[in-house]
């Protein structure tokens, strides 16, 4: 449980950090909360030659409201997201998701950016960001680019980020009028990671039909995904219990469902359907409450 030796760098600002990642490429690794990377290093499953500690870069830690969007710095911790009053009232899916991550220690150290960049198939954040159609803001020495969530997660532990890029921020839409969102999760009892995690955001129209729906599912496949068939079956419809149940049966359509010691593919698929329904139901409930208020 001791890592191989590495060189340690602690850039003070984003510019310096981008220079270092550009310089070291695949030999370098960014260190944020360290709660995914350090265990891998201690098991010697990852052995970066250069460790670039970005935790001192203050400019990457913020939650900013920009009109009907939020921009959140990559170094914002799970706990900061969980406890943000601003997010609780304007984008409650994020605090609700954060609350479900690991335990207090993990939430105090782990960061949004680290979790997304690591793209663990059982991590919670990916579900929320795909459900919200978030936008990832990647920076490198040669410039910056914006990557939509749907293109960001590539495969198991793999994202669209290049070795010389830093995930600087993500942008998510605030909860619109007549909207509601929710996160429902079946935790692995050992790790706390999601066996299945479903994030949902819905927006109702004036008649109470589902005008918009975004669902993100984590834990089920090699990466977080939007269940197209499920969303399609509900979009524009009035959401009765039966329709919901039928739609959610498609939660894992077309996905190579994970199987491990804790849950077989069959059971995980079943959980995906149940938790998808629970998440959408809860989101609907909140949307209709919000519709009454507005």
């Amino acid at each position, binding site marked *: 449980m001791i890592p191989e030796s590495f060189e340690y760098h602690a850039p003070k600002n984003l510019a310096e950090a981008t220079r270092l990642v550009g310089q070291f490429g695949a030999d370098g690794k960014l260190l944020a909360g360290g709660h995914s990377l350090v265990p891998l290093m201690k098991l010697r499953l990852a052995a970066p030659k250069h460790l670039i500690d970005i935790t001192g870069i203050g400019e990457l830690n913020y939650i900013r409201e920009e009109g009907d969007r939020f921009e959140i710095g990559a170094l914002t911790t799970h706990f900061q997201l969980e406890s943000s009053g601003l997010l609780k009232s304007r984008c409650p899916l994020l605090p609700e998701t954060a609350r479900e991550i690991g*335990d207090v220690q993990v939430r105090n150290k782990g960061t949004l950016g680290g979790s997304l960049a690591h793209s663990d198939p059982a991590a919670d954040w990916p579900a929320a960001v795909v459900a919200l159609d978030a936008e990832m803001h990647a920076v490198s020495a040669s410039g910056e680019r914006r990557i939509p969530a749907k293109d960001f997660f590539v495969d198991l532990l793999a994202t669209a980020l290049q070795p010389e890029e830093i995930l600087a921020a993500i942008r998510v839409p605030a909860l619109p009028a007549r909207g509601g969102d929710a996160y429902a999760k*079946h935790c*692995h009892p*050992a790790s706390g990671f999601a066996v299945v995690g479903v994030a949902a955001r819905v927006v109702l129209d004036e008649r109470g039909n589902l005008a918009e729906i975004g669902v993100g599912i984590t834990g089920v496949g090699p990466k977080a995904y939007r269940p197209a068939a499920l969303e399609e079956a509900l979009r524009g419809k009035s959401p009765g219990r039966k329709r919901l149940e039928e739609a959610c049966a498609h939660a894992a359509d077309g996905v190579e469902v994970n199987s491990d010691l*804790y*849950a*077989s593919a069959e059971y995980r698929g*079943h*959980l995906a359907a149940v938790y998808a329904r629970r998440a959408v139901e809860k989101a609907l409930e909140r949307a209709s409450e919000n519709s009454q208020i507005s």
Partner: protein
Amino acid sequence: MRTKILGERIKRKEDPRLIRGGAHYVDDLKLDGMLYMTFVRSVYAHAKIKSINDAAARSVHGVVDVLRGRDLEGKLGNVPCAAGLEGLKIPDHPCLAPDEVRYVGEPIVAIVARDRYIAEDAADKVEIEYGPLPVVVNPEKALEKDSPLVHSKFADNVAFVAKLEGGDWKLVENDKSLKLIKQRFINQRLAPASMETRGVIASYSSGEDALTVWSSTQIPHLLKTQLAVMTGVDEARCRVITPEVGGAFGSKLNVYAEEGVASFASKKLGKPVKWIEGRRENMQATIHGRDQINDLEVYVKSDGVVAGLRCRIIADLGAYHQLLTPAIPTLTALMILGCYNIPNVWVETIGVFTNKMATDAYRGAGRPEATYIIERAMDLVANELNLDPAEVRQRNFPSPKDFPLTLATGVDYDTANYQKTLKKVLKASGYSRLRKEQERLRKKGKYLGIGLSTYVEICAMGPSSRMPAGGWEFGMVRVEPTAKVTVYTGTSPHGQGEETSFAQIVAEELGIPFDNVTVYHGDTSVVQHGIGTFGSRTTAVGGAAIFGAVQKLKKKMARFAAFKLKVKPGELIFDGGKLQTADGSKSIPFGEVVEAAYYARQLPPGVEPGLTEQMVFEPPNYTFPFGAHVAVVEVDGETGEVQLRNYYCVDDCGRILNPLLVDGQVHGGLAQGIGQALWEDHVYDENGQLITGTLMDYTLPKAHHFPWFETSNTETRTPVNPLGVKGVGEAGTIGSTPAIVNAVVDALKPFGVRHLDMPLKPEKIWRAMKQAAAQA
């Protein structure tokens, strides 16, 4: 009025240093010139070691030595096994495997280096060529004729067969009026996973030919003797020191290969050598618990009274014997009747070798398995006869008047009142109300389950005649010249809190402030003798020795006081920092008696100066604590998830010296017992790879998994020791596992489920419900 100390809820003496980080564990100690050791372990479950290439490792700068099995031959003895069973096969168990490995994690090479980082880097560079051999992981398969052999020098994989019979089994078989209920149970393999892993520092001094070993162990004195035998160092020159131990749960009631190799390396290199176990090593190569298959037959009368019980126990011992490996499953046989006076019993225990880490004592050690079998059996009887599980238990309990009671197993139970604990827990849990709520909820498609367990366990280990290496305990009490008191115990508490309870015993007896008493343990040069802490024995045996020593001390002090006061020694009472006559007319301060004893200017005739007394307590019997638990669970009908809603327990551990300590033991014990029922499972795949090698996959119970436990007690004292205490270190673990499983199975009654094996993972429950729905 006497000041009351014993029986009070006194906060633990040890906590401030533990909480504030002021305590010292093995890993906190650094000695001058100390070297660090790491191990290269087998990645195969069974293989020949064809070659080892350590040239690259040796060339790493800072590597001091690389040790292999053959370097130890003739110089370091094997890992010892103390269990003596008739016909037991004991395989050679060298500290480093010389030519064949038999489980994943078996140490092959030890690297000694200037620091731990260098050692780990070098370990990565050792190349071992293996010749894989056939693997057997499943103990039942290991019993088949054509099974691969774990040890080719034996004809089969059977390590021992032990039989226990009582009553008249023919009578049972011939009684056609009896109903036969059969069930197979799996007591799955568990990882003790204490918070502090193992760790050792060995420091050999060639000048004095002396070996000092710091080890995170439960048995410093036994370890000292064994290390002397293994290394050849004169026992008089061996010393074992146990600093703070961060949990053990039986896993450190052992002598491990790593302790031997560290001692050997220090002796060879003339420098202190430290080894600290990593968590992955801890999961692989520290003993595991449980791992039994139990085939049970119960013969029951139509009124629910059990006439006979037959069980075949297949105990998976793993590849080698650790200190007590084969002895553990025999405790299952011994306690299989639980708290029921079942007249006829037949148990066969088969110990089997497999290509896995050794099993050995893990909290409960054989008794949780027994309790699980018998308590599940009671629920199966209730289910079969459509009786309330509480009623079935009542009908099989012996009366409190029947004690002492010899059971068909030949075990002598000391004292009990099972009816009382059961009644109390039924009341505390609102049992009959719960049953009504259950009915209501079932109609709404909600699944509430209520599970009972009434257990008895065997503690205070134990009479030396029945223990592998003595069952007595040593205690010594010394009043220092400043009138402060030092207590020495041969037990080795590691979290249980005896620094507090032993101080309570002594303070109460001597009538002095609790803060004036300090308890020492865990250094073989400071405490002259000892057996250790395990088998819920520390207070019942070690505390009894302290109590005995303090009686002798009081006698002596009374002689000094009486001499001064000119009264009879027998008249004097110790209280409030004084020794006084019963009528209070004459008294002398405690401190003045101490001065008299040490200044020794005027000695009473025949009395030696000084105030040190000791006692070795030999327990005449075990003790048998008992209790009754109720678990209330909700099962999610859609997903099979189990929510533990309430937990009630009434434990009777004899006299209670400190309720806070008892609660602490019960809470922690419950967590571990519930852990087995719901989550824990140490799994090897068919190739013998341990696939639950980290705490990401192996579910240790955590505080947030539990509701608040509603604990309470009854107090039925034992005559086995003068304190009347029975032991409570393992009770929670022993009682809770079946309560939970009974509750979950009870919740699933509408689905026709009569048994599910542990751990009760949601998927298993979901499948059972699905199957029931498909059949309906």
